[in-house]
Structures are given as C-alpha cells and as structure tokens.
C-alpha cells in the first residue's frame, strides 16, 4: 500500500478544493508545508493534522494525511489525546491567533508546559478571519474592526512571550511568504522532541491586509528582520553591519551598528537557543527600535509528556488479568 517512490509535495495535497480567499497568505504556507512533509519523508498514514476553527484551521482538509478539524480553541487537547492513544503518530496542530490565544489560550499553555510531542503552527494574522474581521488578542492597540469601531484598547499578546512564560521548550517564528526559510524552521520544530511552537506571520488580505508590511516589505525587510542562528552573532541589515548587544551593566538588548561608537564584532551577542532570558527578550523585539526575531528563538529539550507517561507505564507488566483485579482485596465464598 505504501508507495515505494519517495513522496513529492503534490502527494501531500488532498482532493479538496482550497477555499481560502484569493491572495490569502495561507496558500503559501500550505505549499511550503507540503514541500516540507515530502522532505521529511514521514509516511502520510502516520501523520495527523489537527486544527481548531478559523480560516487557518481549514488547513487539514488540504493535506492527504489524516486530518481532524475540531472545535474552536481545543486543538491542543485533542492532539494530546491522540498522542496518548498512539505516541507513534506524528501530530501537527494548525491554529490561528484567535483559536490559539483567545479561546484556546489555556490549552496552548498547558500543552506547552506538559511538553506533548507535537508541532504547533500558529498562523498569526492579527485578526479573526473566518468571522469577518474582528480584532484578536494579537491585534495592535487601536485596531479598528467591526467590534472596535473606535479602535481596540488592549495590549496585544506575543505568542512567543506567552509560550516562554508557560515553560514551553521550543519557540520559533517565520513569515508566510518566506518559502526558503520556513522549511528549516518546520524541520527544526519537527526534530524537536516535545511541544514546538512556530508562529507564522500571515497576511489576511481581506481583513487585515499589509499588517506586517512594516516588517516584510522589501524596502525595510533587511533592517527590520533578524534571522537567528544558534551560535552565530546576531547580525542583520542589508550589509549585515547591524547587530544586537547587551547594554553593558544592564539586562537590556539594543541594536547597534558595527564600526559606530567603537562597536566591534565582539560586542555582538551570540545567539544561544537554550537561553530562556535571551529568548524572552527576542520574543518581544519590535521595530522601529529593534528588528523582529525570526527563526528558532528558543530550543531547550526536556522529557516529553509521552515519554514520562510511558516510562511509568513500562515499569509495569501490561495487560494484567481482569480476574485478578476483580478478586484483589478481601473476598469470601458463599457455598452452594
């Protein structure tokens, strides 16, 4: 039954018509994920895509793997159950900023804390797409939407910062259109044993068009994105002459220019994926003062929930006899 020839991106497409709005950032993500799945070589039958509700959550329908489009916000819990029943399955969760951070916020933090071995792709378009454009927990203050005609008044939440606060062990960020860089991030997330959160900045062309253009526009991208590599100095800019350093004697990170004010390569911070403090700083960096951090912000593996559960289970002989159980403790016989 299993094809012997290696699968291609196309083999990961289902027969369903894709129904996102023309121009939606989700298309690019879909393509990249299909390509990455082909590269990973996981068999389709062992792969499960779980999702909640939202535009993003339509994702599983368009893949030829197993797919479960569940209910709003509860994907992490369903995925946990799947892994408990069958730890061998490769489980991906696709969710939106509303699905994951509004109604599903609690499940997200707990699946991260428990370190259930799944990959979480959080499509952040800073808006509720499917319900036609209300502001979301990631919408910036002042966002005008049908439910906030005068502009929203809440501080947005950062998925990455929240994940770190919830004791998550893998946090990454990428952009819908970065089809060259995203596969690497997805690969890393997949390789990481435990819960991996990948925030994908995604453009909703209909309700929040260009909300990331201040970061992604060609004209500013180099100055406003920093692509992290573990063990490498954190440099950015078209000429890679800008970098991040810790302001001496403080815990503050600032952007500096090589050659200015006596700054040299040695002043530049080297990215350490395992440093949670650094990750918390990277998580909330924002233009114009700082570039947005992309790539793997944090990766510091710990025992997964599944491993720990089955370690406890393996210490016991499985499938003991039911009769023994029913007869355990005090019994007595009534003679016939």
């Amino acid at each position, binding site marked *: 039954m299993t094809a012997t020839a290696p699968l291609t991106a196309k083999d990961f497409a289902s027969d369903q018509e894709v129904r996102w709005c023309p121009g939606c950032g989700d298309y690019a993500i879909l393509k990249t994920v299909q390509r990455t799945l082909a590269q990973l070589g996981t068999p389709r039958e062992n792969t499960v895509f779980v999702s909640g509700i939202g535009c993003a959550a339509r994702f599983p329908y368009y893949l030829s793997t197993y797919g479960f489009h569940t209910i709003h916000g509860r994907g992490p819990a369903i995925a946990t159950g799947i892994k408990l029943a069958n730890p061998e399955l490769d489980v991906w969760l696709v969710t939106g900023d509303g699905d994951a951070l509004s109604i599903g916020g609690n499940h997200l933090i707990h699946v991260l804390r428990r370190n259930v071995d799944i990959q979480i792709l959080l499509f952040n378009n800073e808006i509720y797409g499917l319900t036609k454009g209300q502001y979301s927990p990631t919408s910036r203050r002042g966002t005008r939407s049908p439910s906030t005609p005068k502009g929203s008044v809440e501080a947005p939440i950062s998925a990455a910062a929240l994940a770190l606060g919830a004791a998550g062990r893998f946090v990454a960020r990428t952009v819908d259109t970065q089809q060259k860089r995203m596969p690497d991030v997805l690969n890393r997330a997949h390789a990481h044993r435990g819960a991996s959160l990948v925030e994908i900045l995604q453009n909703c062309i209909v309700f929040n068009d260009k909300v990331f253009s201040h970061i992604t526009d060609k004209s500013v991208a180099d100055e406003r994105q920093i692509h992290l590599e573990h063990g490498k100095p954190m440099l950015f800019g078209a000429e890679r002459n800008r970098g991040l350093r810790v302001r001496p004697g403080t815990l503050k990170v600032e952007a500096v220019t090589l050659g200015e004010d006596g700054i040299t390569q040695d002043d530049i911070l080297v990215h350490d994926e395992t440093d949670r403090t650094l990750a918390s700083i990277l998580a909330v960096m924002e233009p114009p003062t700082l570039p947005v951090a992309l790539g793997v912000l944090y990766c510091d593996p710990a025992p997964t929930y599944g491993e720990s559960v089955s370690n406890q289970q393996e210490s016991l002989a499985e499938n003991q006899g039911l009769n023994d159980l029913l007869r355990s403790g*005090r019994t007595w016989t009534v003679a016939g």
Partner: protein
Amino acid sequence: METHTAEPSPAPRETLDAVVIRFAGDSGDGMQVAGAQFTQETALFGNDLATFPDFPAEIRAPVGTTFGVSAFQIHFGVQVRTSGDAPDVLVAMNPAALKVNIGDLKLGGLMVVDQNTFTQRNLTKAGMESNPLEDNSLAPYQVIPLEISKMTLEAVKGLGLSQKDALRCKNFWTLGLMLWMYDRDREATTEWLAKKFAGRPEIAEANITALNAGHAFGETAELSSNITGYSVAKAKVEPGLYRTVTGTEALAWGLLAGARAAGLKIVFGSYPITPASPLLHNLAHLRAYGVTTFQAEDEIAAVCSAIGASYAGALGVTSSSGPGIALKTEAIGLAISTELPLVIVNAQRAGPSTGLPTKTEQSDLHQAVYGRNGDAPMPVIAASTPTDCFEVAIEAVRLATTYMTPVMLLTEGYLANAAEPWLIPDADKLPKFPVKFRTDPENFQPFARNPKTLARPWAVPGTPGLEHRIGGLEKDSVTGDISYDPDNHQHMTDARAAKINGIANDIPEQQIQCGETGGDLVLVGWGSTYGPINQAVRHARDEGHDVAHIHIRHIWPLPRNLGDLLGTFDRVLVPEMNNGQLLTLLRSSFAIPAEGLNKVSGKPFLVSEILTDIHTRLGSNS
C-alpha cells in the same frame, strides 16, 4: 423488628431480620473507616447490605462543629434494598454528631454515646444549651452512655502512643463493641489494620488492641448493663465468590471490562470534581491494565483528550459532575457529529450551579438527553446500584463502539460512594464485542454506514490508505467531505437520529421489577431510587395494592416495549430526586399523563415517603 428463635450461641442472642446502624462523629473521628470495616465484616458474615456514607461538605471543619460531622449508615440483614430509612442504632462520638443525627433515629432506638466528649466546651461548639445526657431530652431513646475515650486510652496505654494518637483509636474501640453486639468477626479488620499500617506497626497494634478492648467490653458488660447482643440472620444469596464494591470501583472495573471486551485500551481524560474524582483516582491505579489517565487543565480539555484518543483508536472516556458536564457539551457535539465512540460518566450531585457538591441528586437527566445545540442525539444509560455500575459501564462501552457514538452514563454521588456485596463475575465469561477497525482501503468511505447498526467505519490514523479528514462541519453522507447541500444535511440529521433510535432494537425489552402488567399504578424509576421504590412497592403489594415497579436502565432511547407496557397501567408515577425529568421524557415520548413524586433535598428517598405517596394516590391509608 421481628424476633426469630435464637440460634444456639455462647450467650443467647435476640435474632433480627435487619438492622440499620449509623456511625456518626467528627470528621477526624474515623467514622468512614469504622463504617467501611463494619461493612466488610458484615459482608463476610453473610448478610445482605447497603451503605450510605455522608461526608461533610468541608475538607476538615474545626473539630466539634456540627458542619464537621461525618456519618456512615449501614443496613444489613436477610434482604436489603436500601441503606435504611431511620436508623435503629446511632453511634454518636460527640455532641455535634448527636445533635445532627438524633432527628433521624427511630423512636425507642438505641444510642451509643461517648460521654467523655460531652464537655461544656464541646457542647458549646455544637451550639447546645444544655447537656442532653443530663437534661432528659433523650428520654424517647435507649441511651447507652459509655466512657469510650477513657476506655480507649486505658486500653492502649503502654503502647507508646502520644495522647493524640491514642485517642484516634477510639473508632476501633467502638467498632469492636458494635462487632460484638451484632456478632461478627474481627479478623478482616485486624488484617486490614496490619496491612494498612505496615509501616507503623505501633499504630496497627494500638488500633487492634482498641478493637479487641471494645469487643471484650461488650462481652463483659452484657451481664451488668443494658447492653444486649443480637444475631442478624444471614441472607439467602446465590453461591459464589463475593466481595464488597463501591459504585466507583464497580464503574472503573466495568469500564475496563468493557474495553477488554472491545479489545481496546482506555484513555481516560478527566478533571477533578466532587463526586466524580474517585473514578479518576481509581483508574489512575490501573495503568498496568492498559488504562492511561490524564488529569487535564479543565473539563473541556478532558473530554477533548478523550475524543482525540478515540479518534486515534483507543476507548476515550471522560467523567465529571453536572457543572463539568455542562462545560463538555460543545465537545460532545463534536463527537456526535464526527461519530466517534466516547463514554461520558456523569456522577450527579445536587444543583443547580455549584449546588451541594457532596449531596446526591438525579437532576442531570434533561442535560444528558436534551442539553446540546443542534439535533444531537446520544444514548443515555443509568446505573441503579453500586454493583449495577459494572454492567452499565460495559453496556456503555458496547453501545459506544458498536454504534460509533458518545454515550452518557449517569451515576449519582450516592452510588459512587455507597458499597454493597458483589458476586464477582468470571471475566472470561463476560460477553465480547471486539472492535473491527477498518483497514481495507478498497472502497473506503469514512461515512458509509453499516446497514444494520448505521455506524460509520472506525478508521484510525496509522492505517495506510485510509487517510481522510473529518470535522464538526456537516459532512457528505458518504465521503465525509464538508457538504453544504441541503438534502445532505437533512439526510445526515435523519441518519444520526435513526442510528440512535435503532439502539432500541439492540437492548433488552423493559422488564417489570416487581408486580404485574395492567395494575392500578406503576412506579417508574431510574438510578439510585431503585431500593426505596422496590421496597415501597413490595410493601404496598403485601398490603394488597395492585402496584408495580419498573426501573429503567436505558434512558435514551427508551426500551421499545416501554410505551405499551406503561399503557397497561391505570396510572404512572415517577419518583425522582429532581423536579420531574424522567417524567418529561415519558410524557413526551408516550403522550401519557404520568405524574411525578419529587424530592430535591440532597437526600435519598425514604421507603416510607414513597409508600405514603402510593397510599395517597390510591386513596387508601393502610
């Protein structure tokens, strides 16, 4: 109490058919343990029995307060169906226990009291103005005031215990006395203590010493006081191997037996809540039997983890009580829509809202049958006794897996905690209903139904060639793809309803528990009211009334013959511990003017309450 000829015994004892004893004391007095051990010895002796543990609402209320009183009632004898209306005997370990429980004691009933605790301080704590042991207010009862505390301290003196630890043995002293009084062994208790305190042998020894001292006191005091020993006739029970079980144990084991019958592992996702938590605790110990338990962050995650597990090929089970079940509602809809097996256990408690968490009630039937958005039918079944929980749990698994549907299993706080003797079944002889996962990709369609059961195939991830997508949106009736087609939605709505209705053909016809068809009145019950209804109906029949008792296990769909059966009676009376919920179901299903007898006080029905109602309705007053 009837008196029989005494069997030959060291001292001639009065023989009784049945007795109801209530042990009552402070939460810290160990009344639940004493009660449980008395139950154990009583079961071993060969009586039929039923128990009713009544915990205080507080974790550990300040010592000596009325709201810190903990009680355990046991009814035992030849044939026992309820935990008893009014106790014949009340053991009161302190003034608060006396105050809270005296109202229930039978007039002329026996009261064993630890008089050492009737200090001014304790009387004040219990809010009593004067000492009942002195003010003659207990005249209507047979009071035996004993220096239990003092005698316990004396008994264990020299065993090296602190005063505090020594005093904590007084429940075993009292137990020893009661075991002597009703002529039962101490062996099981002695063994239990030795095992329980294996790590602290001095505690085991002290408790055993106290137990024996209490027993010896009975033996020696008999001649000199008004303390009498009794014999209680054994029950005529089916021969075989027995044990006692609580409803929770029986439920846990029944779920496991069901999973074994289906050939599945259990993934149990739950969130603690009174009185459902004991099931979680129980199953958490069954890892070695293929049970994975998961304490989720909330009830929604709990049910969702179970749904995920079922999707991946395990038996997903979740449990809660009313407020938590409310939270699971949306997700249950998903399981109904995706047609996945799932067992949902609701250990009902008194509502609405937080209600009275430690008190029993049957008020979630409406929620179980009707409480969802959309047309979302689901089978509902209910356990009626602690041991019945075993069978009902197996049945829940059978329905869930055979029909690819969530099943709601209703139990009650009362059943969860109460214990009774159980003829242990042979696990190898239990019915099997092995699940056949779909494996063949040929012509696989996720929503093509089995023509007989109307169940869709169970195709689990990991199976090559069956990759497919499901979800909560309406699905094409064959492919399972999203479908907005109006005819398809009508078809699927009808199919979901037909599948569940069809279960009526796969369950036993409704039997009459007691009485015959065509009588003047039938009492229709469900759940834990089994005992009191049955007893009341038997009594009424003995009085010559043409009354019958029908008890329903399958709440939805109802047994296929039920409408006809009820139609043979002149009147239908539905006693329930709610405001009339099975009642609406019967009235709407059969368009009959059934009447309700409702009790919503957090306490089980008394036999007498039901009997009185039968009399009133039948216009007699025997």
